[in-house]
């Protein structure tokens, strides 16, 4: 059972309080009618299934009801960070140890953001 840091409640809570909502950072095409059937099908149905770092969306369903993102290693289940909707991850497949400082915005530099990380 995962231990998940809600970036809104700013607390580690049990997985039972959350619902997983699939891959994060999937944006609905702004003009669906302009999409080919294939492009629309890709948006609807096709998801990554990486071995290693994965960005996924969760909702604090039995808590603050907020959706947020989680960077999780699908092999070790380690959660590297959680971050609010609209923000970008610090840890990616390209930067598994974290993006260099010059690629982070101010919010990501805040040390409190690290509280969700399991050691």
């Amino acid at each position, binding site marked *: *059972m*995962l*231990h998940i840091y809600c970036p809104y409640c700013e607390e580690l809570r*049990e997985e039972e309080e959350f*619902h997983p*909502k699939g891959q994060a950072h999937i*944006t*609905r095409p702004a*003009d*669906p*009618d302009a*999409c080919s*059937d294939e492009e*629309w*099908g890709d*948006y*609807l*149905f096709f998801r990554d299934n990486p071995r290693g770092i994965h960005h996924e*969306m969760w*909702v604090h*369903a039995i808590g603050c*009801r*907020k*959706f947020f993102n989680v960077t999780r290693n699908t*092999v*070790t*289940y*380690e*959660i590297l960070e959680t971050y609010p*909707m*609209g923000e970008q991850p610090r840890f990616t497949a390209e930067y598994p140890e974290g993006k260099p400082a010059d690629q982070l915005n101010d919010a990501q530099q805040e040390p409190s953001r690290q509280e969700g990380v*399991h*050691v």
Partner: protein
Amino acid sequence: MSQSLKQPNRVREGGRIDRAQTLSFTFNGKQYQGHAGDTLASALLANGVNIVNRSFKYSRPRGIVAAGAEEPNALVQLGSTEAAQVPNVRATQQALFDGLVARSTNGWPNVQRDVMSLVGKLGGQFMPPGFYYKTFMAPASMWMTYEKVIRKGAGLGRSPMERDPDHYDHLNQHCDLLVVGAGPAGLSAALTAARSGARVILCDEQEEMGGSLLDSREQLDGQPAHHWVEGVVSELAQMANVTLLPRTTANGYHDHHFVTLHERRTEHLGETAPLTDGQRPSRSRMHRVRAGQVLLATGAHERPLVYGNNDVPGNMTAGAVSTYIRRYGVVPGNKLVLSTTNDYAYRAALDWLDAGREVVAIVDARKAPEGDLVEQARVRGVRIIEGAAVLEAKGSDRVTGARVATIDAETFKVTGSSDTLSCDTIASSGGYSPAIHLASHTGARPTWNDEILGFVPSLVKGVHAAGSVRGFHQLADGLANGCSAAAEALSALGFAATPVELPQVNTYRQGAACALYQVPHEKPTLRGPKQFVDMQNDVTAAAIELATREGFESIEHVKRYTAMGFGTDQGKLGNINGMAIAARCLGKTIPEVGTTVFRPNYTPVTFGAIVGRHCRDLFDPERYTAMHQWHVEQGAEFEDVGQWKRPWYFPRTVNGKTESMHDAVARECLAVRQGVGILDASTLGKIDIQGPDAREFLGRVYTNKWAKLAPGRVRYGLMCKDDGMLMDDGTTSCLGENHFLMTTTTGGAAGVMEWLELWHQTEWPDLQVYFNSVTDHWATITVTGPEARKLLAEITDIDLDRETFKFMDWREGTVADVPARVFRISFTGELSFEINVQANYALHVWKTLFAHGEKYDLTPYGTETMHVLRAEKGLIIAGQETDGSVTPEDLGMQWAVGYDKPFPWIGKRALTRSDTRRVDRKQMVGLMPKDPSVVLEEGAQIVFDPDHAIPMPMVGHVTSSYYSPILESGFALAVIKGGHQRMGEIVYLPMVDGKTHAAEIVSPVFYDPKGERQHV
């Protein structure tokens, strides 16, 4: 002394038992005596009981092999009464208590003279590996029958048929460091962490803490080992930051340092928890521990050697022999032969000598064994046969001898002539396998270590291991390793480690162990005597060899094919030997063949502990409406809808005779169609939606238009997913320009709420709109039928005039003097008013309606009548007519789709995909059975041609089907390929019993097709 006479294998002194306390127990109907501190296994051995079970497949007699969790044979059924039955208890882990009653799990009527034995012997011939897959593949429907036969024949224990008198608790725990195992490494680790100020939980599965130190020959600071254990445990017990959990097994490691600990609190006291002050304490507790760091000090399991007839009672692991002698004061035989590959096992022979019995020989697979323990044995005059092993055990119900010869482990050959030594016990040791189970639960694959000839755990972040589980088998190493692993964990937690002064212990000079798993025999494995690898599942070396010959190369496949490791012991003793044999047969190394995977639970956990208090009334929450008590008093039958209890129908009792469901539903239906009925619809999901962009939001999540819905008006809406498939439906009322009340299906309420939040938070955060679940705040009372207006008018100040309060309007006012919202919406096709009042006023309103309703014969109805009435009108239920593959167009509900809405609403794009445009999609239609007395089966498959060869092409299925009292006929809703274009066609429904029903495709609106009745 008289006790010793009754217990022929009990030594006069020593061990951790209390000879002053004699306990009586019954095994297979016979009375025996043991002592406080015994396990059931040690007491049976003390009494000289050789056979404790019959084997699963071959029905061979089996004795006790081990002394702990790894025991494969000594499985017993506990309990003197039906309610107290506990299956598959390992006698090696069951503390003896006075009055304990146990039976062998296998072997009816008794293990000595087993009626299954002959059958088993025959069965064995016909049960090669893969037997289950080959024999019981088909038909699948027969599997239950096969399973019963196998279970009855082989016996896997049985669960009680009566209610468990005990109860069980769950506890949520938090700590900085969880230490699993209280042997030398675990104790030194816990002491280090505790003295450093960390919050520590130390758990250990045994009756007392100390692990290997409880039967150790070693001295710590010049004292017997248990002195040090007692000092450490008493220090820990006094510390406020330490929780000690003896008799507690860490059964599963479940992500992020969440570990489940099963604490058995009363199983050593009696078969049910004894009353204290009239209260029954919980029998066991499941501690759900979220730890900062986890330290595994779980030790190792000794590997027995695999040789011919190594399952005859009297064959044991060397370590178990030592444990029984030194911890329990029981020497399990008279004449010992020890077959070993390593120095450490020599202590079994030394312990045996100390107990005053004869060591016939030590048979050491190594050519020139040397080490301190070897020297001690030599000094005491023990015959040591070098470069040799026990090829096979002699005897049937008990070992009578050991056939020994020199071997070459490398070439897998017997090199010399054999010699049979007379003995009654063969102890064997092939080395030590670290107990990596919990580390394995994390998903981290263990790695093979050639130096210690075993798998060592791979550790995920935050998990540490110390002592034997890492291959540090020497006591001094284990103690030191515990301290250093604790220091690592403490540093990760931000604590400075306080150094612990460790006791002085001897470091022994040890010769290197040799790698031997299966002992060679003069005959090929397939033809020699059976060499058991997994005793619980009767898997032999020959079966593994056969599996590899049949093409199974991955150890995971070999395991599944032979069932190795699939017993309740998960192959704790046999798995590594089995892998080694597969590796030999395949000409590979052990790590090349694979690794070993263990899954929770480490040992079986009783369902009671898993369930805790979540059983019976507390199994799942139940939701009641405000009128629930009234329904109960009226004798309603209830239906579960999600967690809600809804009245299903209200049977009347006249002259002591209670209506059938069919009669009650017919009466309720006609009351609504001809008079007035009343439904408690409070369970409908209700979501209050507010904000300047609420209207825009509704237009995006519903398929139809919301831009012009004025305050005071109500609209029915369809909600799709973005794949265009219907997800939920309901009405939404405009309460004010920026204020709406959405209703959802009862079961869909929480999901729709999350769905709205999802779209708002992730795609359209710019919209100003807020959602609030008000399902429980408002009760809903539906008054429906031709007399509904007259009845309601008596108790409301709202003008119910049909011209000013039209269908699909809502009005605010009072009903029964209570503030209310009244909605003119209809799920029955009749004139209907849905009254919403604050839930705590609802029963008053409900009762007032009945006070005024008597003259109209106001009839309460339940969900079944609701279903019949809505189906007569062709009104769908999301989740019944739909299954995630049905579009609004499939339902013929194009009228509720706003194709020209400006915003690309959810589901719109999908409706122009080629698949959603297919003309042969399954479409909703009505079905009228040709025989009006037939009520078609819901879910029944539909075919166009009943004479088509099997398999017939199936073209749809029945989604809803009822008997209609007003139509005096069965009728159904169905989805049929291209159904909308097939009105008037006849379709067929072949049933399981061979009958075929014919039905006509008709409009799904069966009653009042023009919809006039709801507008009156």
